[in-house]
């Protein structure tokens, strides 16, 4: 992954005119309506919106786990094709393989890709260290706290070196303290490694703290309502989330985004 930000004409991932209609017994559910979103290389894009507006659906389509009704997903200007390690996903419910240890879970993507044993061990160990999981390498998921499980899921998604990391409310199932620690961890990750990330949340604070750009979706059927750039050099980048959230600039952005979401919730 490069450390300089590409501002070229082609985005890393381009979500183009994506709509989604689910046929349910109760009739058609229009979840998404012509969503356009381009994510540049190295950019951390956070999608916020009222609950049920189609955020998860958008991410499933971006991951190739769900087919769009119209529109398409491009990666580096080419149709993205089915799900695969090019776009890995961190789910809210962790989705770790219960029969595998922490190290085996992290090695999964390398193993199915046929990476040889020595290389696999090297990269897993490196990833364990990077996510501060080394002492848990032989534990099973059910022996870990939620926060630790989510670290494993992040490590498992990163070790295959995806072009884009997709995260769907990854901290939604965690308690407040664990969530804060992991938010700071992800901020560190994206600072150090400059990953391209599409991150979904309903926490405005989390969005402003982590994002280079915050995308607000309308209530269902979800459309992209507004995009708000967060300055890369914002003063709070270096602070922890507790301190950051009392910075005037941070509060201002938070208020602005909240106002947008509020009107969408009221509109429902």
């Amino acid at each position: 992954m490069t450390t300089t930000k590409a501002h070229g004409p082609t985005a890393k991932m381009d979500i183009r005119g994506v709509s989604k209609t689910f046929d349910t017994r109760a009739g058609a559910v229009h979840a998404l309506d012509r969503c356009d979103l381009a994510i540049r290389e190295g950019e951390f894009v956070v999608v916020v919106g009222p609950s049920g507006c189609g955020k998860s659906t958008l991410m499933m389509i971006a991951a190739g786990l769900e087919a769009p009704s119209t529109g398409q997903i491009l990666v580096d200007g080419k149709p993205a094709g089915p799900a695969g390690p090019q776009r890995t996903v961190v789910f809210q419910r962790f989705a770790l393989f219960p029969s595998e240890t922490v190290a085996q879970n992290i090695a999964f993507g390398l193993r199915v890709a046929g990476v040889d044993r020595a290389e696999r061990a090297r990269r897993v160990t490196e990833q364990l260290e990077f996510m501060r999981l080394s002492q848990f390498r032989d534990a099973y998921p059910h022996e870990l706290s939620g926060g630790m499980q989510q670290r494993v899921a992040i490590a498992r998604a990163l070790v295959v070196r995806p072009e884009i990391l997709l995260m769907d409310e990854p901290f939604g199932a965690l308690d407040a303290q664990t969530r804060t620690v992991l938010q700071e961890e992800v901020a560190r990750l994206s600072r150090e490694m400059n990953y391209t990330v599409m991150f979904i949340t309903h926490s405005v604070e989390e969005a402003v703290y982590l994002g280079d750009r915050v995308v607000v979706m309308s209530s269902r059927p979800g459309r992209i309502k507004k995009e708000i750039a967060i300055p890369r050099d914002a003063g709070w980048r270096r602070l922890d989330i507790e301190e950051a959230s009392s910075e005037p600039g941070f509060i201002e952005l938070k208020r602005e985004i909240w106002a947008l979401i509020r009107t969408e919730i009221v509109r429902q």
Partner: protein
Amino acid sequence: MATRVRSFWRTPPGKIAWLAICLGSIVVLLGAWWYLTRPGGGISPLFLPPPDEVLDAFVRLLSRPYLGSTLGQHIAASLEVVMTGWLAAGLVGLPLGIAMGWWRKARWVAFPIFQVLRPVPPLAWIPLAIVWLGIGESARVFVVFIAAIVPWVMNSMQAVYSIDALLVSAALTLGANDRQILTRVVCRTALPTLVAGARISLGNAWTTLVAAELLAATSGLGYIALNASRTLEIGILLVAMAIIGVLGALFSVIMQLVTRIVAPWSRANAEGA
């Protein structure tokens, strides 16, 4: 915690307390048995002989052949039939159940068949088995096979079918193909439930075998029980029943042990045996 004392029944016992409670309940049962069957105790030894007479019957069965075979040979005959029928059922039922859980179309094809088979008591197959195969071992193996295959298939199907779809999604995004997902994710995750199905199946096979031996056998534990009841040797009848019960319980314990060995990660193992 400190404000309310937990009731005796809800406090988890220590190892020693647990053993004491288990032994205690057995001792009480034997005591009551002995008390009721002692001379003038209310129950005639013709209906229920006292414990020491049953023990005598057991020792006699061990030392002398009964109905042409030693006790060991009778047990072996029963075990052989039950294992053959159960394993054969597993050879067919396990892959079939997994396929039905994984591929919708396999489920559509095979599920109705098993829905019709399920409510037919395995014993209802005995007359047919006798017509087809005569009163021999193969008839009993066949009936055991029928009794075992239904839970093998149904539980294996359920085990695979109820795998969390999110695990499959996760595996897909990590680059796994269908075969890798089926073997590395689905079957491994389903393993404890698959073994539980095997256990239920073995239990079914065992009870059905004993019943089949009552009708179509020349050796085996059920055959002993049937003959002993005809000759009113209640002691021997009780010994046969006790062995049937103990072996059945033993199977269950062994299968639990198997789960612990093949799926050491299974959460269910953390809770009592």
